[in-house]
């Protein structure tokens, strides 16, 4: 079943064409190929995949906050409608100065994704046109999807709770206490 012919072809063609500009290329599993490049080459890689390989559809641009390694990882997810293969192109962006190239001339829908990333992670896309507010309104704190944004602290500062909320107890612990059951060590991290 899993002969991975097309997936291997993608890896080989991209490696051959871009040589050292592709940092890493591998087949993750059936129908999923992973490439890693850098911000200087991301536009040419995307254009190559779209125009020469037939990855016509940009499914999503997502972002991972690797706060320990001081970087954001942008993931561009492309889809090949004929071969039914996904390609994930990963790019690292510096966390202190997050700038990435704007690609909405390749796929217009990228504009929305980039605006969302600008709002939720504070990543600046060079030359991105569009209102600064997409989902949030009058937001003047850290971008809320960053991992150093403390959601709970923000909630405690800005909202008040009706009394009675605080004696809401963990379901697992309550049941265990009632029946005298011992919670196993591995399950403890899941209870609040």
């Amino acid at each position, binding site marked *: 079943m899993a002969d991975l012919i097309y997936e291997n072809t993608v890896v080989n063609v991209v490696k051959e064409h871009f040589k050292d500009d592709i940092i890493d290329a591998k087949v993750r599993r059936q129908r999923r190929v992973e490439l890693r490049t850098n911000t200087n080459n991301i536009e040419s890689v995307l254009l190559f995949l779209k125009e020469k390989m037939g990855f016509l559809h940009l499914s999503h641009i997502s972002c991972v906050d690797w706060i320990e390694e001081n970087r954001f990882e942008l993931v561009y997810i492309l889809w090949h409608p004929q071969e039914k293969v996904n390609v994930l192109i990963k790019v690292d962006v510096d966390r202190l100065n997050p700038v990435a190239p704007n690609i909405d001339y390749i796929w217009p829908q990228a504009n929305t994704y980039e605006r969302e990333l600008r709002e939720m992670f504070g990543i600046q896309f060079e030359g991105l046109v569009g209102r600064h507010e997409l989902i949030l309104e009058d937001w*003047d704190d850290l971008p809320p999807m960053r991992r150093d944004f403390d959601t709970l602290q923000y909630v405690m500062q800005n909202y008040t709770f009706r009394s009675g909320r605080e004696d809401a107890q963990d379901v697992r612990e309550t049941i265990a206490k009632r029946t005298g059951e011992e919670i196993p060590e591995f399950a403890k991290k899941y209870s609040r």
Partner: protein
Amino acid sequence: MNYVLNDRESSKIVEFIKNFARKNSLWVLAYGTGCGAIEIPPTMTSRYDAERFSVRGAATPRQADVLLITGYLSVKTLKRVIRSYEQMQDPKYVIGFGSCTINGGMYWDSYNTIKQLDLYLPVDVYINGCMPRPEAVLAGFAKLQELIGKGEANGWKHYKENLEWYRQNQQKLIKNWKMPDYNW
């Protein structure tokens, strides 16, 4: 014809008739926030048929009597809700729907949803549950009608009297306050 409308007995009768009329024609503003709006279509359509309890939908805020807050309310939506509420004609009632309006519900640690609705709008009836079933919604409407009949659903009067307090709470969340003042 020699009668006075301003004595105590007759004003009581007028009030009774007014309340009777009000409680038997509740027009609900067709405005859904959050996930609870999905419980409104079954409540209104043939199976639960809220119209037999004289509850109907209204298209615009100026025609509506009841504002249903169906579920969680983000700060962005709160701004629109306040504007809709202030455009409604007196008397007007607010029903808080689902546990999110009571104490945040499952969104208690979300940076963008309010936790207590009654800090921002005067709530007459709360319906708890996540989500409340159509039976619970109808029970909530029945409770509201009971309160209106007794003349106790006075949230709108309370809002006018304590406008400053409500404004203070609202403006704490809505930082860029560009709202018209209504001269009700």
